[in-house]
């Protein structure tokens, strides 16, 4: 009894100190910055010197440059991302922020902050037991309480007392226009941060401009991985976080033989290469693959080839409106192979757009989609739908954009300035941010994020369930290659060809295994 009571008061204390640190977030953050990371001595001097300047510039808004496609072929994704940015900026200006802060390397440890009750030794003393979420004693349990919501007060309206302003021109799904817009935002508008990019082609189109200006740049998309750029922070998941869990599950559940159909450009080619390289490691093999030009919209031949190959499962990496027609056409042709993907369903919400059972049997190791069954996500969806009642779906990259905006605001508060080089250093302090998906950890050396990955499955009626969870998967491939952007700034994209690892497991490239 006494133990329990003590326990409870401890919890309350914990709760109080938690709240205290949250509301006084910026102050503590600065202290950590000054004391902790050695590199930030310079930042601290900048901070003290620029304080009078900041007071003068107090009325100037913090300019957030934001390019996405609100029209054209990719507008289905771009409009979601725009709304995510607008929601985040509104919350920032209303004095809200997401939980989290620079906790240094250690990532998941931060979750402990939110444990409802700490573990205790049971009174009989014979065995170690923990008090579970519900209060009952158990031999083992997850010491983890779900936050009802992760949105808390930031202690100020806007960022450093300045209003956050979103400059969001339309990229129109046109790479040439993207370059013009990036130049305009960087050179004329002199944005404090640039958040932009859906397709990998768009990112690669503007990255040289970003690097020339040393512009702080966030790429919020799920993508093929490999970007090692000192100015770029990639907050979406990459191949190693999605392909391996997905393929592993398919091999376990349905059998070893997979067949890949992929969009014929860098994203599809590279993700297919990952699949090909990793299937053998989990006991599978890719018995055939086909790359489909983005203009193809009629799939009878592709379907016949899959029927001929009779795989155990199909990896679909289909991008854009034309390719989405594969699903209803395959369903109408009676194709019933289980499918796995890293993009479909979570981004273009094909399971909402096409009538059942087009997407039946689709698996995707996602990091976020609207159905994620947690209380904090339901709260996020509710806030979103209150602002945009007519929206049909909140996809993976919309959520990334949302937490990225809050992450930027927090990093600026820690740096005490919007000076881009200082904010970049602040971002390299091992950030943990509590996003709707779960805890996200921004790894300083590679500028990539560790994510909470869930395996989503779509049933015959297009209901989504989550059958397996990986609370944190690192984006480890760049680390494997020895990339450390803090020590050695680089400005390139690595491809699997540059890693002997891949050819080691796939004997003879492009050979059907």
């Amino acid at each position, binding site marked *: 009894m006494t133990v329990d009571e003590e326990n409870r008061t401890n919890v309350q204390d914990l709760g109080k100190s938690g709240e205290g640190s949250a509301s006084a977030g910026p102050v503590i953050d600065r202290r950590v910055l000054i004391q902790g990371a050695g590199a930030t001595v310079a930042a601290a001097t900048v901070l003290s010197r620029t304080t009078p300047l900041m007071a003068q510039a107090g009325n100037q808004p913090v300019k957030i440059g934001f390019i996405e496609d609100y*029209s054209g072929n990719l507008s*289905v994704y771009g409009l979601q991302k725009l709304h995510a940015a607008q929601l985040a900026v509104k919350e920032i200006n209303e004095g809200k922020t997401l939980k989290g802060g620079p906790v240094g390397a250690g990532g998941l440890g931060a979750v402990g902050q939110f444990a409802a009750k700490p573990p205790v030794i049971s009174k009989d003393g014979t065995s170690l037991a923990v008090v579970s979420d519900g209060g009952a004693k158990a031999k083992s349990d997850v010491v983890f309480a779900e936050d009802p919501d992760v949105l808390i007060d930031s202690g100020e309206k806007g960022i450093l007392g300045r209003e956050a302003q979103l400059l969001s021109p339309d990229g129109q799904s046109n790479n040439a226009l993207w370059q013009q817009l990036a130049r305009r935002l960087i050179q004329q508008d002199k944005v404090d941060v640039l958040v932009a990019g859906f397709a990998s082609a768009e990112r690669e189109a503007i990255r040289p401009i970003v690097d020339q200006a040393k512009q702080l740049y966030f790429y919020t998309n799920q993508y093929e991985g490999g970007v090692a750029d000192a100015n770029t922070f990639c907050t979406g998941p990459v191949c190693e976080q999605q392909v391996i869990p997905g393929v592993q599950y398919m091999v376990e559940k349905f059998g070893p033989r997979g067949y890949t159909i992929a969009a014929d450009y860098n994203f599809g080619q590279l993700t297919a290469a990952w699949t090909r390289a990793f299937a053998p490691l989990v006991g599978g093999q890719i018995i055939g693959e086909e790359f489909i030009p983005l203009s*193809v919209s009629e799939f009878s031949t*592709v379907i016949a*080839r899959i029927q001929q190959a009779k795989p155990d499962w199909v990896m679909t990496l289909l991008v854009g409106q034309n390719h989405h027609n594969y699903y*209803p056409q395959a369903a*109408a*042709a009676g194709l019933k192979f289980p499918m796995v993907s890293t993009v479909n369903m979570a981004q273009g919400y094909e399971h909402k757009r096409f009538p059942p059972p087009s997407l039946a049997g689709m698996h995707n190791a996602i990091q976020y989609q609207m159905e994620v069954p947690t209380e904090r996500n339901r709260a996020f969806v509710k806030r979103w739908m209150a602002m945009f009642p007519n929206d049909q779906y909140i996809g993976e990259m919309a959520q990334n954009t949302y937490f990225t905006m809050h992450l930027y605001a927090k990093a600026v508060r820690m740096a005490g300035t919007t000076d881009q080089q200082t904010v970049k250093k602040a971002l390299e302090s091992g950030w943990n941010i509590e996003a709707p998906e779960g805890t996200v950890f921004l790894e300083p050396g590679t500028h990539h994020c560790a994510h909470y990955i869930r395996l989503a499955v779509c049933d015959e009626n297009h209901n989504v369930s989550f059958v397996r969870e990986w609370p944190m998967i690192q984006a480890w491939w760049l680390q494997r290659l020895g990339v450390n952007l803090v020590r050695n700034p680089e400005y390139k994209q690595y491809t699997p060809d540059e890693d002997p690892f891949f050819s080691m497991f796939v004997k003879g490239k492009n050979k059907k295994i």
Partner: protein
Amino acid sequence: MDVLGLIVSVLYQFATNAAFLLLAAIGLIVILGMMNIINLAHGELMMMGAYTATIAFHRGIPFPIAVVLSFIVVALFGALLERLVVRRFYGRELGALVVTWGVSLIMGQGTLILFGPFMPAISIPAGSFALGLYSFSVYWIVLIALAVLIILALWWIYQRTPFGLMARATMQNPAMARALGVNTDRIYMATFALGAGLAGASGALFAPTTSIAPLMGQQFVAPAFITVVVGGAANVLAGAVGSSLLLSAVKTPVGLILGAFLGTVALLLTALIVIRLMPDGISARLQAIAERRVRR
């Protein structure tokens, strides 16, 4: 059983590919083939048909009636478009090209603003049947039959009805047709409306197989133009049928053996070679052969 399945599968794919080209081109056959208007809004007219059918279908109207409805709606829109815009550009091919492109932009972005990036699709009617390893969609077989029927109906209208006679006269020699008492203005409008309506109906027929989105029409534009241009203008209907059969006969085996990418390459290469060897299209060659026979 597997051999039978394979043979049926190859035939099915051949017919599906040909029907896809033919249905995509069907509105353009009338507008480009007969009126010589390079209609870049063709895809958007198909999109409008698909939207009309989808909206009607979700209001509880049976799908076949929804298809007829979209023919009527898009035909009326086509008539309006011809009255207000297109008629000012007869005889000015490049002007027509630019103005229809503008119309297509307005229609595409207008739809995005009005209806958002996507609409819930229609499920593909009818089921599938299996033969050996392979299974086939019943709906695509219906589409193949409908493509044949629509071509026959068009042929009948243009070769066997008074309207067809007047229309052909108007296209060949408008001044003479007018002198003989044909109201060429009305013929132009009716022909454009018919072409638009057919584009709308084919868009509606494709609606269950595709995502319903503002730019969905773009996927049909290139195949449609390739089919009509390869077919040529000497006899548009025969040309379009010939070119879609030829292109499918190349694309199907290449696609099946070497994959969709090389299948598309083979289709484009064939189009290139045909246009190089027969600048007036397949129909001109067919006509020349037919004439030679008659002379003999």
